[in-house]
């Protein structure tokens, strides 16, 4: 199980144990060193006492009796460390005069004053050798190393013992403390779990630790974005339903009015309206298909080539001139002979047609629609200006949304024209901007195409 709590518990316990063991190790070596010095001093002192005491007695004894060459053995007193401490007294010829029961028969060490490390019968000994002034008697006091090791180890072990006892208690305390520390995370996950799926409001961030705050912040940002996406989706479906169903409703009602007509004139009007409605629905479907074709699909690339926007503009305006003429709208084009950019000619024609068609649609009769092309530094700027009602500042962002229509606009648009324009501008990496028209009235749409 990948649990933060377990991981923290294990690693904290491991760190504590290692630290404790290191301390014990250090204490062992430190104690060992002190014990060595203490025991060495004791060894030396014992040798001196033996030499002073036993050396003198032995000399006397040797003068009294003939020396039989057999060393006297001193029986042990029965302490458990007795067998680990030993001494030998030799004469000037190296003969063993006296030894403790724990000492071997052969000399403990070489006949040199001072300390020596020796191994006797597989056991290691620390031996101190001392000769008297006349070099007649040599005392060797030995001690098994084991004693010192045991002592140092027992000091260090005494330190380790509490660790064994406290480790489970520590484990419990750490477990609880980590659990407490992680409680804000649990609270947040609880809050998320119990949430209504439609509730995308930010999570409560009060009293959250700094370590968790970034997570919460990221979560809230995500929730916000999700909410926005859902909201725009909801808006889209509502707008789409309205824009698609209203023309159908109009068709159905006009057809029923025609069937129930009380006079020939009423029937003709209703049928005329029906035809207008069908034309409107046809236009809407055409726009929908255009938008669908412009939708980026995986793996498809837009064919780009050198194309002359000025030529495309002339062609599109020629096509739309009758519509302008019908409304007595003055339609004009100000453009250089050629303005070449890299793009898709079909798409650019659709963009121009939508912009100019929109301008003619929304401009009242006897108005004015002007199209201008400017070759500027590094770009070609297309401007379509009309003398229509314009678009209020606060609506300018939303008019590019699919099916969005300015409320109160009487003209029968599809609500898709500017979405199409935006999509084509995006494909051409062109920037699109809406502004007031001439003298603050009407609308000016400008599209700036990069030259390369």
């Amino acid at each position, binding site marked *: 199980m990948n649990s933060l709590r377990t991981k923290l518990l294990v690693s904290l316990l491991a760190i504590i144990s290692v630290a404790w063991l290191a301390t014990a190790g250090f204490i062992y070596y430190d104690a060992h060193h002190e014990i060595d010095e203490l025991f060495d001093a004791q060894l030396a002192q014992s040798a001196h006492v033996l030499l002073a005491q036993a050396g003198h007695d032995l000399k006397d004894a040797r003068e009294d009796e003939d020396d039989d060459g057999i060393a006297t053995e001193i029986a042990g007193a029965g302490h458990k460390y007795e067998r680990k401490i030993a001494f030998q007294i030799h004469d000037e010829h190296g003969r063993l005069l006296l030894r403790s029961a724990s000492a071997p028969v052969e000399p403990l060490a070489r006949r040199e004053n001072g300390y020596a490390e020796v191994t006797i019968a597989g056991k290691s000994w620390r031996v101190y050798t001392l000769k008297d002034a006349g070099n007649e008697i040599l005392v060797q006091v030995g001690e098994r190393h084991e004693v010192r090791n045991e002592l140092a180890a027992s000091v260090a072990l005494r330190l380790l013992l509490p660790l064994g006892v406290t480790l489970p208690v520590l484990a419990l305390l750490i477990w609880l403390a980590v659990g407490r520390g992680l409680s804000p995370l649990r609270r947040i996950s609880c809050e998320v779990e119990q949430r209504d799926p439609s509730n995308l409001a930010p999570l409560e961030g009060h009293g959250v630790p700094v370590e968790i705050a970034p997570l919460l912040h990221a979560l809230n940002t995500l929730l916000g974005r999700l909410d926005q996406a859902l909201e725009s989706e909801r808006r889209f479906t*509502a707008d789409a339903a309205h824009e698609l169903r209203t023309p159908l*409703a*109009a068709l159905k*009602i006009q057809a*029923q009015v025609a069937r129930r007509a009380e006079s020939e004139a009423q029937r003709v009007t209703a049928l005329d309206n029906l035809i207008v*409605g069908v034309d409107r629905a046809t236009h809407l479907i055409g726009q929908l298909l255009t938008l669908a074709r412009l939708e980026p699909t995986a793996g498809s690339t837009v064919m780009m080539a050198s194309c002359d926007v000025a030529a495309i503009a002339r062609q599109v305006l020629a096509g739309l001139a009758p519509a302008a003429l019908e409304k007595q709208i003055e339609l004009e084009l100000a453009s250089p002979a050629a303005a070449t950019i890299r793009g898709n000619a079909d798409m650019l024609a659709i963009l121009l047609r939508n912009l100019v068609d929109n301008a003619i649609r929304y401009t009242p009769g006897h108005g004015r629609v002007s199209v201008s092309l400017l070759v500027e530094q590094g770009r070609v700027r297309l401007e379509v200006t009309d003398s229509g009602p314009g678009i209020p500042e606060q609506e300018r962002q939303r008019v590019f949304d699919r099916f969005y229509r300015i409320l109160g606009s*009487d003209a*029968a648009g599809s609500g898709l024209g500017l979405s199409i324009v935006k999509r084509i501008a995006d494909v051409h990496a062109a920037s699109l901007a809406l502004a007031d028209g001439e003298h603050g009235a009407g609308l000016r749409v400008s599209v700036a195409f990069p030259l390369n």
Partner: protein
Amino acid sequence: MRLLLVEDDPLLGDGVRVGLQQSGFVVDWVKDGQAAKLALQAGAYALVVLDLGLPRLSGTDLLKWLRGSGNDTPVLILTARDTVADRVNGLDSGADDYLIKPFDLDELGARIRALLRRAGGRAAPLIVHGQLEIDPATRQVMLAGKPVELSPREYAILLALLEGAGRSLSREQLEQCLYGWGDEVESNAVEVHIHHLRKKLGAELIRTLRGVGYLVDKA
């Protein structure tokens, strides 16, 4: 019956207006929420047909304003939004009925009549007054079991008087039932229609209150 139609789409609005006129209603048509508010402040309507996706003042806001100002005129909503949440929302904000686009003109008429009937406190679809029997759905008028031919305007005046039986209606109030905006009002038309009605249905049915108006007694 004078209705207010609030619809921003020109083709749909025109169709509904003509269709409802064919069904014998007088229809005033406004194209945005603000105009609807003004119209509702200015005159009394028997019912409002309201599109929710309205310019200037949304249908929902208009509805809230209407109910908030204590006006209980029946409201029938026309909308393209068909989710349950939308329908619940529409009815909860004060609408009495709901039609989803595209809808049927006959169904719209039937629903309007049902709403008017309920608003008039009647449960039965037929209006019965003594020996007189009116079917608002077919606009058929029967007197003692025999059909009577009435012109649309005579019918409208009779219906208004019967709906308000026991209450007097002034000449102006009756004119309101006859003419929508832009219709030319003939100066003594109401008197002429009343005269015809008395000839066809008997002189006792409609009483004249001098200086006040006309009255049909409660059955």
